[in-house]
């Protein structure tokens, strides 16, 4: 298995609170991605990173921010969580020379 760890694996939080999800890799891959999975929508790209401090928006980036201060860590922050952000969040990594991405186990976030 690719060395990807997502934390926490499960979280319940209240509306309006900030939340940070962490993705940690041990593969030294250049590219890292955050997706959310929702019924009927599949996996939708939130943000991605192509290097330290280099990030870009995906298709559903509103309400989310990211940071990548080290190659191995990619943080996803919900500044003020809303119920519409209840979802399963997946991190993925991809090597510069590779074409497929490898996924973490996911974080189930519930906003109440």
């Amino acid at each position, binding site marked *: 298995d690719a060395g990807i760890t997502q934390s926490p694996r499960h979280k319940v939080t209240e509306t309006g609170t900030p939340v940070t999800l962490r993705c940690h890799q041990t593969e030294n891959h250049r590219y890292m991605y955050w997706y959310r999975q929702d019924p009927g929508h599949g996996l939708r790209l939130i943000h*991605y990173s192509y290097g330290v401090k280099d990030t870009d928006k995906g298709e559903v980036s509103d309400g989310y921010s990211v940071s990548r201060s080290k190659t191995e860590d990619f943080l996803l922050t919900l500044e003020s969580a809303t119920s519409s952000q209840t979802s399963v969040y*997946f991190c993925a990594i991809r090597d510069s020379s590779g*074409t497929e991405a490898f996924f973490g186990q996911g974080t189930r976030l519930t906003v109440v």
Partner: protein
Amino acid sequence: DQQVKQNSPSLSVQEGRISILNCDYTNSMFDYFLWYKKYPAEGPTFLISISSIKDKNEDGRFTVFLNKSAKHLSLHIVPSQPGDSAVYFCAASDIQNNDMRFGAGTRLTVKP
């Protein structure tokens, strides 16, 4: 706007028969296509891929076909096995822009 579409939410086939999963895309910049398999409570795992310069790629029981003019690809599983029961995601990648977009997924059920 969903750039990758899987119009069949579910598919049920008998063990030993062929499973055909379909995927359509709209962005002509996509140059690499992938299929992922996902079991409940796990992250998606890479299954098979195809470059836009090819029209077929085979790996054991799995074959992916690409029709660029129709912007359509399909995954064939022959023979289908009960262990193939999972959600299958189609993905398309624009290598130059580094992002990767997914379809909504098709839930395959293989009945013994």
